[in-house]
């Protein structure tokens, strides 16, 4: 597909790289020539310097033939204008990033009236993800499928856990709780495990199953499953606001440390229930005084990645809190992993994931067959949820008899709201959604799983 990306910041560059790798023709537009130069020499994309909302610039970038325009500049208004003009000039699909809460509240109106295909709010998405983790702090990451009915929980096996040195077969025989371990990450390696795979301490496993069953699984493992009672947030940006809204609504106490007085007063207007602390979140005394050692969850959301990482390391040393660290910019994922910070949130990947999901769905002529897409461990593994819209070669046949490509694991079937953990005799029906894990990237449709 012909895709135009306006804005070459963090997200823009990530999108250009990943979409170009998926085989699309990408043109990037940015006002700064050095940024454009950088992106176009590092990835196989074409760069244009100029204002992406300009009609002639869009013409130049080939808006006439474009299928999709994605506006991810720093300014909401510019993004919306870009999409509006692209819609009129090229009649293509448009995706805008809008982060200002004032607009987010009216997001559906804007989307409808301006004819946008999709609006993404990375701050909101990050907040949602953080909130999910805080509901179950033992997990590193929780993703959901089938409108929240299926959960994918990433969990790190501790030393001495009953899972250590056991094969998957014997685990499922002992546990009997209808969940599946679908991905195992061990250091740099990733496995889609078979039944005889043996788990080790420090492996990161991803467990998929219905919400009830996964709670059961972790209870049997004697892992605490209760949610955090309070959250200590440093940095009062947009993400903090969205997060606080969500946490307060489910009854988690929120404490936000913000050093800007104006922002503090804004937040106190917006969030009357939250405790707001005016002060520097990097001040050790302040953190101690405000009771960081007793906190159950610590969320570092300042605007500086380095500061967030430092703060989390500090919190790790003095408390038992669940740590959540936001990393925006820096590209040293593997080093950050080594620091063992627990959950690390990368808004740029979240945004890219959402857009790539949309783009893959667009490629399907019938419409969206990919319901959900998550990527793990540097995009080596994808967890996909497909909707089976019509009769196709996978429907109605026992799974053992299907000739699947290697490295595909069917994890879960949602049959009219019943969550089935598939066995060899299970069948897929029309209207079901199927969750699967794979190391093959670029699957478009459920049919693609067959050889």
């Amino acid at each position: 597909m012909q895709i135009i990306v306006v804005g070459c910041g963090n997200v823009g560059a990530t999108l250009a790289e990943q979409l170009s790798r998926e085989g699309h023709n990408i043109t990037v537009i940015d006002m700064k020539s050095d940024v454009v130069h950088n992106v176009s020499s590092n990835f196989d994309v074409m760069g244009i310097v100029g204002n992406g909302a300009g009609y002639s610039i869009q013409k130049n970038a080939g808006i006439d033939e474009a299928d999709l325009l994605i506006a991810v500049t720093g300014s909401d208004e510019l993004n919306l204008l870009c999409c509006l003009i692209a819609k009129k000039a090229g009649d293509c699909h448009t995706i805008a990033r809008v982060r200002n809460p004032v607009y987010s509240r009216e997001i559906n109106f804007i989307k409808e009236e301006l004819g946008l295909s999709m609006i993404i709010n990375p701050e909101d998405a990050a907040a949602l993800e953080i909130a999910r983790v805080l509901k179950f702090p033992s997990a590193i990451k929780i993703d959901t499928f089938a409108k929240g009915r299926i959960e994918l929980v990433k969990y790190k096996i501790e030393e001495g856990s009953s899972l250590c040195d056991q094969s998957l077969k014997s685990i499922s025989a002992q546990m009997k709780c209808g969940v599946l371990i679908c991905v195992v990450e061990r250091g740099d390696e990733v496995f889609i495990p078979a039944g005889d795979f043996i788990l080790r301490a420090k492996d990161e496993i991803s467990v998929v199953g219905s919400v009830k069953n996964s709670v059961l699984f972790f209870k049997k493992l004697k892992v605490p499953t209760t949610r955090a009672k309070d959250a200590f947030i440093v940095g009062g940006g947009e993400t903090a606001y969205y997060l606080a809204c969500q946490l307060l609504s489910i009854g988690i106490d929120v404490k936000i440390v913000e050093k800007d007085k104006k922002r503090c007063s804004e937040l106190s207007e917006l969030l009357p229930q939250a405790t707001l602390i005016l002060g520097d979140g990097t001040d050790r005394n302040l953190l101690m005084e405000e009771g960081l050692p007793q906190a159950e969850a610590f969320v570092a959301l300042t605007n500086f990645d380095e500061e967030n990482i430092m703060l989390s390391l500090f919190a790790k040393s003095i408390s038992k809190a669940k740590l959540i660290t936001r990393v925006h910019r820096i590209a040293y994922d593997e080093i950050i992993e080594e620091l063992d910070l627990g959950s690390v949130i990368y808004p740029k990947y979240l945004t890219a994931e959402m857009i790539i999901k949309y783009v893959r769905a667009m490629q399907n002529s019938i419409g969206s067959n990919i319901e959900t897409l998550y990527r793990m461990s540097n995009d080596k593994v994808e967890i996909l949820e497909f909707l089976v819209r019509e009769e196709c070669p996978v429907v109605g046949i026992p799974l053992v008899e299907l000739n699947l490509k290697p490295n595909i694991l069917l994890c879960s079937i949602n049959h009219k709201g019943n969550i089935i953990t598939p066995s060899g005799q299970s069948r897929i029906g029309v209207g079901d959604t199927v969750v699967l894990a794979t190391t093959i990237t670029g699957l478009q449709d459920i049919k693609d799983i067959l050889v």
Partner: protein
Amino acid sequence: MNYSMIRYILCRVLEFEALFMSLPCLVGIVYREKSAVSFGAVMLVCFAVSLIGRRFKPKNKVFYAKEGFVTVSLSWIVLSLVSALPFYLSGEITSYTDALFETVSGLTTTGATILTDVEVLSRSAQFWRCFTHWIGGMGVLVLILAVLPLSGSYNMHLLRAESPGPRVGKLVPRVKTTAMILYGIYMGITLTGTISLMLAGLSVYDAITLSFSAVGTGGFGLLNSSVGSYSVAVQLVLTVLMFICGINFQVFYLLLIKKPKEAFASEELRYYFGIVFLSAVLITLNTRSLFDNAFDGFHHALLQVTSVITTTGFTSRDYNMWPEFSKTILFILSMLGACAGSTSGGFKISRFIITVRSIKNEVSYVIHPRSFKKIHMDGHVVESSVTKSVLVYAMIYIFIFLGSFLVLSLNNFDFTTNITAVAATFNNVGAGFGMVGPSGNYSAFSVLSKFVLMFDMLVGRLELLPILILLAPGTWKK
């Protein structure tokens, strides 16, 4: 330096070399010539080596601009060394240095020859000489990029290192598609040229070889008289072909996608038209006593001007006999070259425009010390990094020119011969004045001089830096 990646791409280059060589081999078989054996042998060896090399795929795929430059220049050197073998093995050129000179001259689209009599060559050898022009005109790595599924960021580095011009851009987002479009246009022009030449009365073989030579703006001919003894119609077709291939290929792409306005907005293109026309008129006036009628004079002047400015080097008349003014115009045009992004060599008109405008700016700074002015071309600002690289290019150009000139003077030939030999090879024209003029050749030069001239040809074709980077010690550090 990622040596294994470079080795891998070089093996793929050899694979293509084997493919290229199958054509002259075929020609040899058709005309039942002995030289087909030597082409076949080299072809098989290339193929075998590339097969072995391809078995070891590089693990480390890190590829930066540095690797791109080194790969491109090494590819050209390897290609030259291998392509010279058939001439030497079949005994048609007795010394390997001479065979190499002939090949480098072919691949770099120079057209300088060391042969005193080209008509005695076998047909397959003549075909190969002209075909190397065609390969070198658009570049072999561009072809590889168009055909092979090389994914990753490194293909841009390869494209940039092989394509001529101060600013190398893509036509479409993907390098692969860009390369395919470039070769598509190139093949289209070649095919049209061949058919036109056949319509003008040439045999199939002559039409194909001559159109390779003209489209690649190379200049090897089939006859000792270059293109002088062909009919006016053939000469006209060749003039048009050369002229077309001196134009930036981006212009054709814009025409193909029906954007003629943008295509003709290129200032370089307008200067190119202007310079060719003006020079042809001036030479016609200057040489009017030598020709019977004005049409004849203009025809030969235009052919000569196009041939020199596109750095082809075809000659229809011995311009050594022309007045000094005409000769000087031709000499200056040979240094200038045609448009960036074409198959021609030389300094390129766009670089000339940028240089002239920076001089103008510099003068205006003296008059208005606080003035602030940026250089514009085609309605866009030329970034200062581009201007800087153009000016540095000019300086390196002069230094290499003078250095080569100094080494050549050891031959003790006359001043004109030496300086035009360097100019003709460095700018990939092929034909100079004096002993290297239309009726002469390069056989009299010493071995050292020949190697210096080969270096000049390669440096000229790849636009200085890719070859120079090979000489920098920092390149080879692990």
